[in-house]
């Protein structure tokens, strides 16, 4: 979706404010919000792409105003409700609905180290033919899907070169909507900075974007 999360190239967002000796979490609630997201994710009712898309669905003014872990909290509430793990009434009241049964958490403290150490690979060991080869010129498609996409707006319609083929990965644009993993090749695509931004950019510079087969089309001469 053409949302405010798609920030590449937007101007006027102000100075970058690095914080010396920044703590991992600024407040205890941030740490709890972070951990709640991971622990609730262990129910496997949604995937990482659906989780990202839920943040994109926040009202634009809220997206820009809220701090990072406020967004994570708001997104988690929506994911939990959509998954049927809680109801909006339970969120409002703060207590389980009367008569609801108590579940068993899928993530135990003992499992945390191995779960984090294993992670969740997004690559898929399936045979899918690549549509493009390293060195080939491509164009990022001029598409504007209303749902989740990992093709940033600033690249659409622009010509780049396949730098390398990363292999076959889950396609977030379908996976975020539970429409299947649709595994396909992901490429590192090099776009000259001037192709993207015109003459104001340095002629030497470039932006590398990881894009999927479905984001790309051949350049016809």
């Amino acid at each position: 979706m053409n949302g405010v999360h798609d920030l590449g190239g937007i101007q006027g967002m102000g100075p970058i404010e690095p914080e010396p000796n920044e703590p991992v979490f600024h407040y205890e609630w941030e740490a709890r919000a972070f951990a709640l997201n991971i622990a609730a994710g262990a129910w496997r009712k949604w995937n990482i792409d659906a989780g990202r898309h839920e943040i994109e669905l926040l009202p634009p003014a809220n997206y820009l105003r809220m701090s990072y872990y406020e967004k994570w909290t708001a997104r988690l509430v929506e994911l939990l409700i959509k998954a049927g793990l809680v109801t909006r009434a339970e969120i409002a009241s703060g207590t389980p609905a009367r008569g609801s049964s108590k579940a068993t958490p899928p993530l135990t403290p003992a499992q945390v180290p191995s779960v984090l150490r294993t992670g969740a690979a997004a690559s898929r060991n399936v045979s899918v033919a690549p549509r493009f080869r390293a060195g080939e010129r491509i164009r990022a498609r001029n598409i504007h899907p209303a749902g989740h996409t990992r093709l940033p707006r600033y690249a659409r319609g622009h010509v780049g070169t396949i730098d390398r083929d990363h292999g076959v990965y889950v396609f977030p644009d379908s996976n975020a909507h539970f429409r299947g993993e649709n595994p396909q090749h992901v490429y590192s695509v090099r776009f000259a900075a001037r192709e993207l931004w015109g003459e104001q950019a340095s002629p030497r510079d470039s932006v590398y974007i990881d894009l999927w087969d479905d984001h790309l089309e051949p350049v016809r001469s």
Partner: protein
Amino acid sequence: MNMGDWHGHKHHDHEHQAVPSDPALRVKALESLLVEKGLVDPAALDALIDTYENKVGPRNGARVVARAWVDPEYKQRLFKDATAAIAELGYGGRQGEHMLVVENTPSVHNLVVCTLCSCYPWSVLGLPPVWYKSAPYRSRAVIDPRGVLREFGVVLTEDVEVRVWDSTAELRYLVLPERPAGAENLQEDDLAALVTRDAMIGTAKVAAPQRAGA
């Protein structure tokens, strides 16, 4: 658990005033609801937090960089299969499942960003700093990388090529910074101590070591 430093973060206080209710209260209410429903185990939350506050952070990445500086064969393995080479040092897993290492040289400077969200190599750098996830950095890194770098105090001449890596997929990028002059005789551990988080994102260079004693 670390409550963090409440002083000197006026901009955070300001942000909090802009939301309808106190996020600390809302998160607390959410946690107690999920615990009461048996959806999460609070001890698992403690273990998750402990991991990223105390065990996984930029010291991991610094060890990868130092090893690459002292061991040319390791460096080659890092470029060939970064995920496997990083796993040799015991690092991997969540948000580091598919790693790539890009090398800074006198003629090429690499900068990593995620314009669409906050993708970051947790397994080697820990959780990202606020500025990395912020709109100013995400919006500007791709259109004005040299301006961004100047803001971080890195001034590049026009003959240096800047490569910006927008982490739009599940590949996670670690910048291998240049080994600073004056660090030729340092051992691996001392080299690792020089390497900062920002140098591995690409918003800093590694500074030459302070001359201590002799």
